């Protein structure tokens, strides 16, 4: 094939037809309150780790629903579990507990991958 010097950049668009929601569904089993987040950003604004790491509970909950798994993992690793976000959530979500549950889900996934030899 003739090379015209063009290449395709991978699309950054979120395709809701193919997004893998399995982690989000697992999270909902453990933390049904993840459904009631309205994305106000109080958690992120009060987060001690946010300015240095980009950690944001709001973005974690949203990212899971949009297939941004790699970004979610990166943010989770920055959380110090201080719980300030839980204090300010206007919907009363126990965000600290939610993060712990999500870490557990992610850890299970990693173990399984290891066991499968991936």
């Amino acid at each position, binding site marked *: 094939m003739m090379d015209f010097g063009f290449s395709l950049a991978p699309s950054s668009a979120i395709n809701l037809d193919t997004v893998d929601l399995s982690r989000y569904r697992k999270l909902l089993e453990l933390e049904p309150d993840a459904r009631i987040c309205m994305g106000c950003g109080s958690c992120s604004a009060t987060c001690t780790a946010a300015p240095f790491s980009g950690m944001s509970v*709001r*973005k974690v909950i949203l990212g899971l629903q949009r297939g941004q798994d790699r970004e979610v993992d990166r943010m989770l690793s920055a959380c110090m579990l201080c719980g300030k976000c839980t204090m300010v959530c206007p919907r009363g979500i126990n965000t600290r507990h939610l993060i712990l549950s999500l870490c557990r889900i992610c850890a299970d996934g990693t173990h399984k991958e290891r066991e499968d030899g991936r």
Partner: protein
Amino acid sequence: MAKKKTADTQVAIVGAGIAGLEAARQLVRLGYDPVILEKSDRIGGHVADWHCLFPDMTPASRLLDDLTDATHDLRVICRANIVSAGRLGDGYNLLLQDGTSIHVRAILVATGFSLFEAEKKEEYGYGVYDKVMTNADLEHWFNTGIDARITGQDVRRIGFVHCVGSRDVKAGNAQCSKVCCITAIKQAIEMKEKFPEAEIWCFYMDLRLFGKKYEDFYIGAQRDYGIHFIRGRVSEVSENIDGKVIVKAEDTLCGKPVKVTLDLLVLMAGMVCNRDNHPLAQALGLGIDEDGYFRSKDNIASITASDRKGIFYAGAATGPKTVPETLAEARSAALDIHAYLSAQ
């Protein structure tokens, strides 16, 4: 109109805010002589403390003057506290704290709302920091020009926090207070007119601009007044060594934490259920909803009807409402009362 004896009064209106006064005006037109019971020592309710009303910037005093003119011949009992209410014949006998007993055939509950006590949101610093005020304080300043938090012309950076004590489970008020979005925009525009050099930021969770001309206000605030809108709920407020206020939020559209230093911060304290709803509901045998407001028979066709015969609602007693909604409901309730009394 001649004042009738207590025993002949057919309708008691509880609350002399705009809902109670408008209903009274309509009942007078329909030939009744209602008695108005007011717990405070003056009539006019919250609107009496307001300066201008959206969307036409009508002076609040003009509305109140019209209402008081139309009702000033009526019997108004101030500092009234209904101790008990019992069925008597085809009506109710209301007993007040001073022993006055009033026999009526219908009761209109027009007790309105309470303003959220902003000091309860401790992280916003109302009553703690010198430059934090509420929407009500600002209206008071518009009316009187007196407030220690606004001095001179050095107000250059102003912030408005939407949803203070509303849409907030922690504050015990999950409901939207409905009018604060448009009130914040109205007040932001008024402040920009008073301080043309000022930069103004509105911190919101969602902008709910549903009413007639509200969206025009929003566009005007952006286009003509250059007011900044940041989508993010303020998480905390602090004070710096100069006495200025530092506000922290997440700019959720940007996805980054933001902070801004301000000369003045205005908290949009929301409408919450009237603190005295519970004792009144008990005295009258009325239902209270989960949000603390009175429970209507249904929320579509019978908002002004209660579960009890002869007791009706108007205005913010059943939920946050705008001024025109309250007035419309008061008229509607007056007609319902007329139909009820005519059918008996």
